[in-house]
């Protein structure tokens, strides 16, 4: 679906992304992990076309990203950015309806309405439908935005034809239960011919749900593989500069990561 080949992004003399390649295919749930400033978001923004790459190539279904019209792209690819803000008081339902923008001209049809309501139900935000979006809590906003992504891709998901979902930390404001609701939904989507790329911070969520994990460090791919491949103490310790214990999850066939105590000077001793 989306193929990124040797992407490098340089701003001034600082290389934010160095030679990263990734293949995002339908049916696969890919996750990018890494420290703050490792280049995760920059790489994702390059893939979405929001940032210019210095070198490398991006292909969407075999065609160069730059040659595809926004509207065509929007019909099969949804992108959820970090902290989207909206100061105007649209209702939550109106925000989800905006996901239908690439599919209908003028006013939304009854079908758009039906789809949007269904998406809100799927994400569990149908009770917020008539609430003004700016008055929602951070987590509620994030879930409504996720419902908007779902509404955008609905037609493709229904037809079982391939499409792509890119998410930059979609869980950052969610509680435990909602984190798993969204992850479970995304996992189901990835089984329905959706290519998923998600940036995450929670290693255990990634271990439990992802099919492929790309751990980035200093703009490079540090490790790439299945959760069992990349969740090795030496890899995680190097990538995150944090000692960890890794064990088998008691219930699932996936690793479980626990951070160990950092053997560093405490702040207090410096005072």
């Amino acid at each position, binding site marked *: 679906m989306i193929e990124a080949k040797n992407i490098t992004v340089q701003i001034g003399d600082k290389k934010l992304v160095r030679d990263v390649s990734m293949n995002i295919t339908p049916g696969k749930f890919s996750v990018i992990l890494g420290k703050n400033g490792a280049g995760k978001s920059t790489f994702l923004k390059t893939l*979405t076309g929001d940032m210019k790459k210095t070198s490398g190539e991006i292909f969407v279904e075999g065609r160069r990203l730059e040659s595809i019209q926004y509207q065509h792209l929007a019909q099969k690819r949804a992108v959820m950015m970090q902290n989207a803000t909206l100061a105007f008081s649209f209702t939550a339902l*109106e925000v989800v309806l905006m996901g239908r923008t690439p599919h209908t001209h003028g006013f939304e049809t009854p079908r758009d309405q039906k789809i949007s309501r269904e998406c809100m139900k799927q994400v569990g935000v149908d009770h917020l439908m008539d609430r003004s979006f700016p008055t929602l809590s951070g987590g509620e906003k994030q879930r409504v935005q996720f419902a908007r992504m779902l509404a955008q891709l609905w037609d493709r998901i229904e037809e079982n034809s391939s499409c792509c979902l890119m998410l930059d930390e979609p869980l950052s404001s969610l509680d435990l239960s909602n984190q798993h609701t969204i992850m479970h939904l995304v996992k189901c989507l990835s089984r329905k011919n959706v290519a998923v790329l998600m940036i995450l911070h929670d290693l255990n969520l990634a271990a439990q749900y992802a099919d492929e994990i790309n751990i980035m460090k200093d703009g490079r791919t540090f490790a790439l593989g299945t959760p069992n491949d990349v969740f090795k103490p030496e890899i995680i310790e190097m990538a995150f500069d944090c000692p960890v214990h890794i064990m088998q999850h008691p219930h699932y066939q996936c690793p479980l990561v626990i951070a160990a105590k950092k053997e560093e000077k405490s702040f207090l001793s410096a005072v």
Partner: protein
Amino acid sequence: MSTVTQYLTIWKSAPRFRLSVWVLSGLSLLLIWMIVISVGIGAVSISPIQVLAIVLDQVGISTNGSYEAVQQAILINIRLPRVFLAVMVGAALAISGAAMQGLFRNPLADPGLIGVSSGAALTTAIAIVILSTITSPLIEFLGSALLPIAAFVGGISATVVVYRLSTTNGKTNVATMLLAGIAINAMAGAILGFMIFLSNDDQLRDLTFWTLGSLGGAMWSSVWVVLPFILAAIIFLPRLSRGLNAILLGESEARHLGVKVERLKKMIVVFVGLAVGAAVSVSGMIGFIGLVVPHILRLWIGPDHRFLIPGSAILGGLLLLSSDLLARTIVSPAELPIGVITASIGAPFFLWLLLRNKEFGGYL
């Protein structure tokens, strides 16, 4: 049949959609009624039936309506062009305000932010203070068209400068545009101040009245000249509504929803620049409409540009028409500057809406 039922379900389940349709229909009817009423009011009064008879006779449909020749002359040559001009200028200012507030994702934006009004004010001041004192064949040839032309050229030039300053490699940075607009406005203000310093008492009075706005000089010729610019905005800005809605989520978000964001920004600046430039050139600076009309409507029917943009045109026309009616009647035979009226009708209404919405939390 089932489609009808489905649309009926939307109609029933979307109170804001329903409200917007009612409000826009109501405002349109009110505007038509106001046009008929206000052409009849003045030193010579003309009843609505006479208005209808005169207009029908004029377009070639004979009626047996009884009216005097003087009524016909006043209606056709004085009242009608003035009323049309008021509606058009009001619509242009308000629709531009709505588009700018969407583009800047800020409900406090007004059309003046892209420099168009201050640029127009500056060149008008130069025309009043310097050009009108020198004798040249060109200036004599232009005659009374000198001020409108100066205003239009100044407004458009300032807009082009602001747009150029904020655009690199075909991408317009809206934040830079805001700041460039502030800088250009300040610079124009400084030169305007210098013009005021140079002016004599008569010129100063002309200039001051220009900045308060007036539709006193309305003629059919001015209607025809501004019509294409304002009509372009009224026809094309509503087509950008869905993109403007998406832009409220953020520029990248809009792009990911398939909106051609750069093209949208350019088109908004072009239509707003032309419409406001044309409006300012025939009526001077009329404040308040561009900022407050979209705001009033947003508090009333919500932020959806598909209703907000056409609704702003209607309400802007209505508000300016009513203001002009007051401006020319309350101190008749003299006339008040229209800016005085727009602010004194609009501000209390706006405050009332604010207070009413305060209890619901959001005021945007």
